[in-house]
């Protein structure tokens, strides 16, 4: 698995939304996309799914069938009558096709994925009855059952409680250790520092890419968050409203 962007510009309907993207990710690496709202984090993730346009540069992206995607659970209708088990099984649809009966191996994979995210006891519950953090874990389990080589996560910690955040971080570390490359967008600098091997700073263009030590510094972050003053307190990064 290799993901490589060289001088890439991205956008929609020919209009650029993000420029100068230079990233290289190998199996097992964890990349966090950091930047304010509208910075282009989702555009970059969508480009890996073929849902935004590559308007310049060279992009080497793994085939679609080895890429997993975890959307934000808040975008989904909580009233939709679908069980946790059914949602996770959707991750097997690609191999099952439209109509092939569910096999023992599929049920086993779903059970294992739910166990991995700590939600075995919720398997028969309706998805919408779970908390935001639990829903996010279900969507992670759905991605896991497809055994992706590259996993993309769109703001996986938004509206997530501490227990679920810890559970998600643990699963992501395990996946990474098993060779799955991860790309996640986040506003949370502490999570990015804790979880990622590589950080990509974005705001309309790529400002920097490197290790957390290289990128999560006041001098690197200040231009990315131009509308806010940035300060360091007790070694931690703090974004302060102007």
């Amino acid at each position, binding site marked *: 698995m290799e993901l490589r962007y060289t001088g890439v510009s991205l956008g929609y309907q020919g209009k650029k939304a993000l420029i100068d993207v230079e990233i290289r990710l190998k199996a097992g690496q964890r990349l966090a996309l950091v930047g304010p709202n509208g910075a282009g984090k989702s555009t970059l993730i969508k480009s890996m799914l073929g*849902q935004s346009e590559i308007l310049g540069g060279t992009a080497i992206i793994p085939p679609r069938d080895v890429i997993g995607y975890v*959307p934000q659970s808040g975008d989904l209708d909580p009233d*939709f*009558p679908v069980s946790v088990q059914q949602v996770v099984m*959707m991750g097997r649809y690609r191999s*099952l096709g439209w109509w092939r009966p569910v096999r023992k191996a599929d049920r086993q994979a779903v059970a294992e994925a739910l166990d991995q995210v700590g939600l075995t006891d919720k398997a028969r519950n309706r998805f919408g009855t779970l908390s935001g953090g639990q829903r996010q874990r279900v*969507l992670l389990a759905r991605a896991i059952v497809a055994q992706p080589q590259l996993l993309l996560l769109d703001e996986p910690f938004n509206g997530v409680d501490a227990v679920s955040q810890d559970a998600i971080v643990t699963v992501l570390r395990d996946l990474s250790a098993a060779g799955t490359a991860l790309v996640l967008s986040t506003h949370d600098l502490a999570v990015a520092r804790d979880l990622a091997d590589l950080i990509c700073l974005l705001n309309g263009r790529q400002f920097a890419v490197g290790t957390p030590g290289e990128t999560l510094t006041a001098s690197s972050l200040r231009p990315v968050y131009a509308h806010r003053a940035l300060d360091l307190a007790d070694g931690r990064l703090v974004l302060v409203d102007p």
Partner: protein
Amino acid sequence: MIFRATIEIVLVATLAGMIGVHIVMRRLSFFTMALTHATFPGVVAASIIGVNLLLGGIATGAVIALGVAALSRRRGQNAAAATGVLLSGGFALGAALIATQSGFSRDLSSFLVGSILTVSDQDLLITAGVLVIVGAVLLLCARPLLFTGFDPAGARAAGLAVGAWDVVLLLTIQVVVVTVVPAVGTILALSLIVAPAAAARLWTDRLPLLTTLAMLLAVASGLAGLAVSAQWNVAAGASISLSATLALLVSWALRKAVS
């Protein structure tokens, strides 16, 4: 006559309950309302030129379904507003077409509230055929329809053509609407399609059970409405529609009482 009407309402109500679940799940009730009204001019035009009403309804309904699907995919377009305009525009076009035909206006009510008591053997065969086709489509396409309805972004990322599946569902809804309209009418079709599914949704989260319950409630509403119509000489479409509405209201009240 009443025997054929009974068979027809069982077939039509089964269809309505089956598709109603998808309409309720995806919150497409307003779109379906617009579709019932937009079908109206096609049915009237078909009647005027002497072709099968089903074909006329399918032709105009397909244009509307595809138009709404295209609109909902465009950024910045208000699909709900467009659907609303289509609702009244379609109905107005149907009324205008009727007005061009002298002596035609007295038949208006049969389009508006249906005429299930006049169904022919050919109508029964067509409805049965549509039921088999729609049942097969919903069964064979259950997985992609479920995935794209629940999580379009996730489904798209998994390689499903979400727009194409939306069109499949909208066209299936449209075929059902066109089949239901002659029985219960343009104005009243929505209640038979949506009310049983909405009532069933109050009782279960499980999709197979929800679908079965919606079909049973729709058939029960249809038969009850037909019986009321025969007993008290009420327009069949209206009594069927009222029965379906009553099923929803009773379910809602019972659910409130239970919880």
